[in-house]
């Protein structure tokens, strides 16, 4: 087991190295980063140096003057000790901005994951136990509908119904206009109020996948021999399903949910942007659109790490919860 984990970790580092290089090379080769924008604006000012001269000067200032390969190794050298440089767009250290924003995203992700589990798993089990019934069809079609909705369209619909027509929530942002005048509890509820729609949106769009996954696995379990045995022993249907079947369905569920845990830190890029929630996703979106290389680099490598970590966790969990699985 330890050997497997070490091997996987080493492999992950290698993969990460190349992923980082691809991203870095792409960002550096695009002629539209933040530096180019500044150089262009500055060169347009009267009596200014030419664009090329500004570029030369700014490249040195921002440490972008050694080629792509050299620059990448320089970046790695700093990144390994946790120094991701200063964000150009936010003009603060990248890690500081990250700490300011990531916890909001994490809370949003966690709450929506909890709701997702609460809603999707029971519905999935229900659909599987009543296979081919009306309930099953309704749940299946519902789960397909939730995965077919584009985030922006669903968010717009939510805004139209709950913000515009019912006036329950604000359209954008994390805090209301009178936030500063509120008491501590008022501030908490103000933020909570602003997070309702984004979390609803996140939850709704993600339950479909988990619901179908639960249903498929539950069906597989229900068709297995030991369930038939349990039934033939004359156990009640409730015992069969919740004691024998559901517990075995948990095996794949635990692995997939465990694997999705690192993803809680990645933030919801689109949802946060649509609701202008200053989590890591929205922050990164602004930085990326502005061509902020240090921040974008950090965010994308961070996402890659989370993906690798998620895969590793689900593989390990798979072996942990299911003793039949042997890891080579």
């Amino acid at each position, binding site marked *: 087991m330890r050997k497997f984990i070490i091997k996987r970790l080493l492999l992950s580092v290698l993969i990460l190295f190349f992923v980082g290089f691809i991203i870095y090379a792409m960002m550096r080769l695009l002629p539209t980063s933040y530096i180019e924008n500044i150089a262009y604006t500055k060169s347009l000012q009267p009596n200014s140096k030419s664009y090329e001269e500004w570029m030369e000067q700014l490249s040195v200032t921002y440490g972008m003057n050694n080629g792509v390969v050299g620059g990448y190794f320089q970046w790695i050298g700093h990144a390994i000790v946790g120094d991701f440089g200063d964000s150009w767009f936010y003009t603060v250290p990248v890690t500081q901005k990250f700490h300011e924003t990531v916890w909001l995203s994490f809370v949003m992700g966690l709450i929506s994951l909890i709701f997702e589990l609460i809603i999707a798993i029971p519905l999935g089990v229900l659909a599987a136990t009543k296979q081919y019934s009306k309930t099953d069809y309704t749940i299946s079609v519902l789960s397909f509908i939730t995965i077919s909705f*584009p985030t922006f*369209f669903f968010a717009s619909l939510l805004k139209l119904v709950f913000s515009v027509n019912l006036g329950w929530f604000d359209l954008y942002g994390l805090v209301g206009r009178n936030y500063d005048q509120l008491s501590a509890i008022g501030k908490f509820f103000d933020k909570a109020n602003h997070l309702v729609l984004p979390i609803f949106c996140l939850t709704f769009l993600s339950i479909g996948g988990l619901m179908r996954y639960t249903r498929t696995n539950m069906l597989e379990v229900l068709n297995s021999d030991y369930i038939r045995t349990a039934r033939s022993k004359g156990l009640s249907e409730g015992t069969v399903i919740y004691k024998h079947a559901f517990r075995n369905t948990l095996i794949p569920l635990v692995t997939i949910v465990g694997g999705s845990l690192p993803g809680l830190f990645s933030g919801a890029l689109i949802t946060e942007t649509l609701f202008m929630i200053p989590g890591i996703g929205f922050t990164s979106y602004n930085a990326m659109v502005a061509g902020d290389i240090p921040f974008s680099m950090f965010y994308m490598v961070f996402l890659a790490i989370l993906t690798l970590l998620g895969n590793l966790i689900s593989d390990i969990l798979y072996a942990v919860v299911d003793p039949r699985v042997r890891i080579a």
Partner: protein
Amino acid sequence: MNEQDKELQQEIGVNPAEEPEVKDENIANPETENLDREAIETVAEQEAEQEAKEEDSGDEEHLSLNDDRRVKVLSPGMLVLKRFFRNKVAVVGLIILAAMFVFSFIGALFSPYGEAQRFYRIEDIRQPIGGAKVITEVVYDSPSGTPKSSLTIPAGRAIKLINLVYEGLPTEKVVIDWETPAKEREITSLPYGPITQSGVSYTIQSNDTVEYTKGADTFTLTRKGGFYEVIKDSDLAFIGYTYSLNAIKQTDEMTFDFKVAAFGTYEDLKATSTDSATFNVGSDVFELNSDGEIKKGGEDYAYIMSYNVKPISDLDFYTQDFKEAVIYAIENNPMLPGNEKQFDYVKEGETEPTTYSLIYNAASEKWEIKEALPSQVYDKYSAPSGAHWLGTDGHGMDMLTRLMYGGRVSLLVGFIVVIIETVLGVIMGGIAGYFGGWVDNIIMRLVDVFYCIPTTPILIILGAAMDEMRVDPTVRLIYLMLLLGFFGWAGVARLVRGQILSLREQEFMTATEACGISAHRRIFRHLIPNVIPQLIVTCTMGLGSTILIEATLSFLGLGVRFPFASWGNIINDVNDVYVLTHYLFVWIPAGVCIVLTVLAFNLVGDGLRDAFDPRMKR
């Protein structure tokens, strides 16, 4: 007992033939026979669909082979189709898809409008038609038009000097503000000077004359009230005045000589408090009264005003009456909110008065004259009507037509991206799975790398970069498809490799090897076809998710760009809160189209999976 139940029984091994009800009811019905056969074939299929036909003959042994028992054997493809069409949900998906294709690809042919055809409507919009201003600054004029600023700047300074002493010598020290730094000077006696500024030296000769030298030239500026003459070498070089001279008829041109004579005489009248005087320009005789009205041969010819009232267009001409109405309104009418004054004026040949507004601009001290004129504007956000069934969008284009073309783009992008993904994925996955060893290792690490690359952020960055570089929309569309395909092949490669790894160990592959078939043929003729069922399912589902990604990018303004329509960029308008709340017809239909299409692809994909592999049924 419905069909699904039968299938369930097939799955758990109950032979429907043993069900008495079914047997009794449908004993002579070939349909039932087919069902029975299918149950058997399903078992056969589990071995390998390719060999289904051969294995059929083997399976038939435990049935009687009498001709009356013999039924038509369905090919594996037909079986899949049959099973697919039995799935109602999948059929609904297929119908939606077909409808979407007809709507997008054929509907656009029948639409009377083009993809980027704009519509207009006539609307009364207040437009600036002219301006009015109290003349506070000296206007310069010379025989050859407005003199150069190199001439007027010293003249302006000379005028400032002369104004200091015009009413007699100043009793206090005066500040000459145009000197740098501004200087305080005491002018006690005339002539005074020289004062030098920017290489020009000024000398105040008398209380209405300033002489100044610039290089070798000497200019003499004489003041007559609000009228200034600048003489150089005893010739009149240019004049300055603080009035406007307006012709009664548009055809009469106010010549330089006429201006000189008119202003000169006007100032003389004012100085001497005479009521009228005459002056000659060439052979013409003009009569001027103290109100500034000039007559030629007893008829009104021109008039002098202290306001400058001018139309914006040279083709327009304001009558004296209108100009006086403007001036009267400026001086007497109450100020409305927004620095606005209004007045009514009956245009010549009309009976109803027209309302004009005067908007004051404090920075330029100008009044802008505005009139509500019918103008052609884009027919933006017009509500659904007979001409535009779904109304028009923010560019004044027909919504329904945009939706059709948008569907084309969205579906095309989906298909092309999935084709790119599949081709790349099948080649890479096929090679990796078949050859194994170090080739497999390298390719799979590459797959891992691509799996790890966060696609959405990268596409956002590239989209923003393409925005910045102003990439042509067509090129952009192609880039978008290539990029989406390039970043999406890893999943397909993994699937194909996994399938091939398990297929490679099966007997039929050993047989192909024994037959000495070339590697190329073995991969592409024997392995890949067996992967195809899985591949079709993945592709169908992939189409849905690709359309979602494309729509999201276009919605953020980073994907398909105007003039191309795509369902995503049609909804883009919803970013404007006013559109969100008031123009539902602009963004709801496109959203519904996306949801329906993606849903349909998912349903069909799911149906196909069940049809291809009944063991995996949901």
